[in-house]
C-alpha cells in the first residue's frame, strides 16, 4: 500500500472539508483497502466515515424505509423492522460475502463503488430507491451510470438510501464459485402490479433494469411469463468466469427463480 494519511471525521461537513482532490472516503474498507493493498488505488487521504452517527441505522415508517449509508450489511440483515417491511432486502444483505465482510461493509460503500457484480445496486433499481447525498437526491435509475461509475460528483457523500417497500420482492443470485460475487443477480419487486427488475453481475455497463421482463411480469407475475422474453447477450459481460451467452441465460434463470420465490 502506498503512503496515505488517515482522518477520522466526526460529521458530514468535517468529512467533506477534509477530502481534498486526491482523497477517498473510507467506509467499511472492504473494497477500498484491498484495492489499495494491490496498489490499484493510491488516495493521499482517507477520510473515515465510520464515526459519523447521523449516517447509521435503519428506520421504517409504515412502508417508508430509510437506511443510513454507514449501516453495515450485518445490521441491514438483522434489522427486525426491515425484515417485516422488506424481507427480500434484509435477506440480500445476509448473502453478501461472509460474516466478517458483513460486519464492516456498508450499503453506502457498496452503491458508491458500483462494482458490476455487487448485490445492492440491483435492489436499488428494482425498489425504485432514492440515493441521498450531502447535496441532493438522485433516483437509482440516474445513479448507476456505468461499470464502477455513478452520478456522484468528486467529494460528494452518500448519506442514505430510501424507498417505499414493494408489495412483494425477491432476489436470487448465482454466485461465482470462487469469488462468490454474483455472476448474475436479479431483484424483482412488485409495486402494486407495476413490476421492476434490477440485474447485477451480468450487464457490461453495470447494474441495469430489464424492461422486457418488467413488461412481461407487470401483467402476469409468474415465472412462465418470462418464457417468451429473450435476454440480449450483446449487452452482457464476457470474461474468464462466463461468456455473454451464459450470463444472458443465467439472468433469465435467476429472474424465474426470484419470481417463483415471491
Amino acid at each position, binding site marked *: *500500500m*502506498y*503512503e*496515505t*494519511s*488517515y482522518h*477520522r471525521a466526526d460529521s458530514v461537513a468535517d468529512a467533506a472539508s477534509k477530502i481534498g482532490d486526491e482523497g477517498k472516503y*473510507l467506509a467499511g*474498507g*472492504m473494497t477500498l*483497502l*484491498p484495492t*489499495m*493493498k*494491490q496498489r490499484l488505488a493510491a488516495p493521499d487521504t*482517507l477520510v*473515515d466515515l*465510520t464515526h459519523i452517527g447521523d449516517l447509521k441505522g435503519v428506520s421504517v415508517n409504515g412502508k417508508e424505509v430509510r437506511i443510513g449509508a454507514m449501516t453495515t450489511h*450485518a445490521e441491514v440483515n438483522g434489522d427486525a423492522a426491515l425484515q417485516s417491511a422488506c424481507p427480500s432486502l434484509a435477506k440480500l444483505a445476509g448473502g453478501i*460475502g*461472509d*460474516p*466478517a*465482510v458483513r*460486519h*464492516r461493509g456498508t450499503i453506502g460503500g457498496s452503491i458508491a463503488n458500483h462494482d458490476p457484480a455487487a448485490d445492492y445496486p440491483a435492489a436499488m433499481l428494482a425498489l425504485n430507491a432514492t440515493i441521498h447525498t450531502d447535496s441532493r437526491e438522485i433516483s437509482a435509475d440516474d445513479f448507476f451510470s456505468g461499470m464502477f461509475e455513478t452520478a456522484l460528483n468528486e467529494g460528494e457523500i452518500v448519506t442514505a438510501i430510501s424507498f417505499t417497500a414493494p408489495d412483494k420482492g425477491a432476489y436470487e443470485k448465482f454466485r461465482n464459485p470462487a*469469488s*462468490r460475487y454474483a455472476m448474475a443477480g436479479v431483484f424483482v419487486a412488485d409495486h402494486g402490479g407495476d413490476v421492476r427488475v434490477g440485474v447485477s453481475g451480468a450487464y457490461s455497463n453495470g447494474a441495469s433494469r430489464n424492461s422486457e421482463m418488467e413488461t412481461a411480469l407487470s401483467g402476469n407475475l409468474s415465472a412462465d411469463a418470462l418464457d417468451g422474453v429473450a435476454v440480449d447477450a450483446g449487452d452482457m459481460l464476457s470474461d474468464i468466469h462466463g461468456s455473454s451467452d451464459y450470463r444472458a441465460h443465467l439472468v433469465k434463470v435467476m429472474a424465474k427463480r426470484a419470481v417463483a420465490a415471491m
Partner: protein
Amino acid sequence: MAKVEMTINGRSVSGVVEDRMLLVDFLREERNLTGTHIGCDTSQCGSCVVHVDGKAVKSCTMLAAQAAGSEITTIEGLASDGELHPMQAAFRDNHGLQCGFCTPGMIMTAVDIVNREGADVDEQTIREQLEGNICRCTGYHNIVKSIAAGAKEMGSGMKEAAE
C-alpha cells in the same frame, strides 16, 4: 503517523504507527501476537480474523488507525489460566486441523458464530458461515464437527456460569 490506543486481550496498549499500517501488521509486528496469520492479499482467506468490539473482522482489511479506541481479541486472548478455550479444545479433540495455518482464524470465526447463532447452531449454518475462511488441508469436515462440539461446550459453560 498516527498515535493509536486500543485494548488487546484485556490490556491497554498504544503505539505510533504509519497511517497505512494494517491492524494485522500492528498485531504481528508491533505486539508480537503472531497467532493471527496472513494467508492472502485479497481479503478472502480469513486466517487473519480477530474480534473487534466483539465482532469477527478480517484484520488484514482494517487499518490499525481504524481500530483505535476498540477492544481487540486475538487467538492469544482466548485461553485463560492455562486452560484452552472450549472451542480450541474442540478443534484438538475433533482433529479440526492439520497444518494449523488457518486454525486461529477458524477458531475466532467459530466463536463469533456461536456468539451470534447460539450453542445449538446447526451444521448447515456453520458451513454457510465459514464462507470467508479457507482451509487447504482438512476438507472442512472436521472443522465443522469441531465447531458444533465447541458450540455445545461453550453453551454448557454459559449455563454453568449463569447458575
